């Protein structure tokens, strides 16, 4: 029982009301016996546990980045305690440390958004090792040969059966698309620069890949929309392509649900001809999002620190490496995708970086519907997730933004609209951007709210939302968000006063997707041939058994657990 807390639960229209939250059997319940354990949350902010929709926390590229960057370990490490393991890493923390750090901030669910299907086993091994939080991973489909072959033949049903089989086999949660067609072109040393470019050796365009997979997503009734990292990421002028990407599925929107999610939108909202004429395209992108309900986006905010970029977008990382001239990493994942890793330092005085910083915040402040804009740093691409409290303070306080802008490249700041934006997020809007809306977008019905039947994942922060003025006293909010007073996970107290008091393993959600029976039957005949033709492994060896997951939590499409 959590007594007298000031509850912010936007999914249930509760905004800063003093309420008691009763917990039983790992769920939020209507009432508990008088003998129940009580947490006195008087004067504290009570919210659902945080739900991060996009954070690269596990998998082969995360691990490759750890190997590439031993210097990232030396500058930030945690010693073991009686309860927690030791760990290292500032931008790419080791698995256990990742779980502890999220938990300390009150996060209870985190999504790994880019898993090469062939490397899914590795991803799950790391997810198994990340304690404290529930998680899920998104397999990559946007450059997959099978997907492209089905779609170039116009066989959407076959593609749906393939995607369903892949999600079941890799224990994935949603369809991730990265630089559709572009990573395949990168296998040949090229890239794709527009929605209607032809993918080399395939009779298909990015537009057709996105539309095809959007249709597949709807056929399979997957809980989350297609999760898209558009072409041209990180290239000046890319905002128009981002809008075209969103618009290419506008006619496919169904019953008010999002048809497409654009990930880390800051990196694809650049205007200008080249780096010297770079401008913010946030106004145009946010304008489109405001006018079209079928789109959701997340920020991809950058933080001024040393961090590590990592993406399946190999050609983009090559460009970044060429800009910097330092070490990088590149991988080719057979017939599926690729990857690149480049360490970066975002600098306040750098014109491009200061512009990027402003774009992320402009997007968050210009998109009007708080259910469709989510807070991320695209960890670790924009900065480590441990910077979230700082991002929250920028969202909640114009003064915090002005303070930050003082030390920045002024010619960049002068060219953005950020100084003229007065909007400041309320606690309810912060709760949406960090848990309520993300859980809804992911279709995680038991997450992101505190109504009866929800998972008992609760974050309690030592700040009184009725008394504090976040606009002026943003430091108090930031401090409270860094170290939650209490975190409840599945009904158990796991964090107290910002320290882990109980180490638990989290669940891994995946979608037990099925195409209609007739299509599944046809597909079973095609699958082993597909693997014979294109893979170094057989289909039978590709499948990850359910018991490989430490705590498997399958979700049946259309809602509910199995």
């Amino acid at each position, binding site marked *: 029982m959590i007594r007298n807390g000031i509850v912010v639960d936007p999914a249930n229209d509760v905004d800063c009301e003093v309420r008691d939250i009763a917990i039983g059997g790992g769920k939020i319940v209507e009432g508990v016996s008088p003998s129940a354990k009580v947490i006195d949350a008087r004067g504290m902010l009570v919210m659902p546990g945080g739900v991060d929709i996009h954070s690269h926390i596990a998998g082969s590229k995360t691990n490759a980045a750890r190997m590439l960057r*031993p210097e*990232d370990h030396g500058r930030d490490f945690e010693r073991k305690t009686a309860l927690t393991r030791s760990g290292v890493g500032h931008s790419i923390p080791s698995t256990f440390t990742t779980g502890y750090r999220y938990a300390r901030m009150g996060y209870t669910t985190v999504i790994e958004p880019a898993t090469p299907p062939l490397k899914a086993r590795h991803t799950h091994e790391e997810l198994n090792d990340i304690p404290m939080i529930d998680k899920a991973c998104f397999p990559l489909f946007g450059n997959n040969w099978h997907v492209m072959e089905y779609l170039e033949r116009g066989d959407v049903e076959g593609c749906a059966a393939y995607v369903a089989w892949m999600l079941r086999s890799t224990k994935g949660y949603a369809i991730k698309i990265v630089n559709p067609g572009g990573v395949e072109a990168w296998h040949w040393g090229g890239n794709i620069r527009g929605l209607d470019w032809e993918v080399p050796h395939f009779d298909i365009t990015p537009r057709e890949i996105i539309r095809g997979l959007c249709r597949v997503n709807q056929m399979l009734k997957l809980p989350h929309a297609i999760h898209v990292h558009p072409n041209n990421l990180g290239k000046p002028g890319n905002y128009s392509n981002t809008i075209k990407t969103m618009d290419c599925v506008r006619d496919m929107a169904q019953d008010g649900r999002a048809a497409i999610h654009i990930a880390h939108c800051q990196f694809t909202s650049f205007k200008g001809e080249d780096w010297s004429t770079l401008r913010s395209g946030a106004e145009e992108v946010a304008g489109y999002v405001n006018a079209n309900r079928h789109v959701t986006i997340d920020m991809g905010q950058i933080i001024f620190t040393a961090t590590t970029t990592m993406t399946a977008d190999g050609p983009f990382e090559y460009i970044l490496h060429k800009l910097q001239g330092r070490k990088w990493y590149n991988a080719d994942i057979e017939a599926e995708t690729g990857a690149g890793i480049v360490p970066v330092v975002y600098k306040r005085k750098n014109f491009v970086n200061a512009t990027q910083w402003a774009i992320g915040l402009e997007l968050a402040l210009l998109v009007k519907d708080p259910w469709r804009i989510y807070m991320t740093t695209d960890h670790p691409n924009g900065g480590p997730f441990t910077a979230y409290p700082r991002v929250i303070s920028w969202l909640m306080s114009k003064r915090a933004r002005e303070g930050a802008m003082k030390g920045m490249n002024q010619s960049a700041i002068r060219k953005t609209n950020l100084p003229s934006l007065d909007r400041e997020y309320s606690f309810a809007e912060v709760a949406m951007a960090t848990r309520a809306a993300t859980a809804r977008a992911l279709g995680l019905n038991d997450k992101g709210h505190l109504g009866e039947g929800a998972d008992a994942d609760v974050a309690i922060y030592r700040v009184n939302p009725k008394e504090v003025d976040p606009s002026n006293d943003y430091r108090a909010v930031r401090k409270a968000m860094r170290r939650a007073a209490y975190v409840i996970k599945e009904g158990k107290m796991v964090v107290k006063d910002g320290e882990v008091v109980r180490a638990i393993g989290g669940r891994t959600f995946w979608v037990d997707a099925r195409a209609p029976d007739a299509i599944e039957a046809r597909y079973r005949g095609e699958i082993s041939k597909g693997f014979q033709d294109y893979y170094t492994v057989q289909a039978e060896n590709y499948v990850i058994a359910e018991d490989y997951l430490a705590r498997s939590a399958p979700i049946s499409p259309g809602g509910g657990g199995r």
Partner: protein
Amino acid sequence: MTEVVLRPKGRFSVPIEASAITPENFASKTPEQMMALEAWEGNRRTSLGSLFDVEVGEVDGGEEIAITIVGDASKLRRVGKGMRSGRLTIEGRAGMYLGEAMRGGTVTVSGDAGSWLGAHMRGGAIEVKGDAGDYVGSAPRGSGRGMKGGQILVHGSAGNELGCWMRGGFIRIGEDVGQLAGIHMLDGTILVGGDAEARTGAQMKGGRIVVMGRAEGILPSFSIEEARNAVRAGEERVLGPFYVFVGDLTEDGVGRLYISKERNPHLRFYESYIE
């Protein structure tokens, strides 16, 4: 001046994390406070007091702190980390990361020193009477920021990857060095009194490396520039004659190798390429 003498209470069997031993950490502290500073013995948290006997004495006034460790310090890591002033003397062998990231003051070792001596240091001076291990004055693993200033003098020999990613300052090794001396070097000077194993200056972009003894070979990505009689290394003028190579050309580098002409007859064929 305050003199602090530390004597190990016994033989250490596991590595000791001893970064608390710096003149700054000891300044204006009582002996009890000094000995309460944290150290790690293997994976066990402990204090300096449980590892060392301490003696503190005052000598003719002044703020300066002089620390002396008497005995085998080869298991102690990161002694003098980030120190800015004062004196640190090890009468015996020193362990890994001695003087890491130091900015000032002096460090003296009467015996040998371990690897990572003066790693990414910015200022001050280190003198080792014996030999040093690998990575003298280097960058931390994975980082591109090696030694930036100050000087390291090793009377004996040094191991591999000396001055890796070095950005400035002066390293002088009295005897021989291992492979890949000055790898990734950007600036500063390395003077090797003895021989250098293979791949000296690999991927260097700037700076200078002087080899007085035999250089096992010159990487093919270096090009001979001239022969000259003397070169400046730190404060001194070193007499040759030397072959001067420029490279590493795979990095568009303009680093220079000064290789003793007399001790390297196997490089004589390069003379035909000097205009």
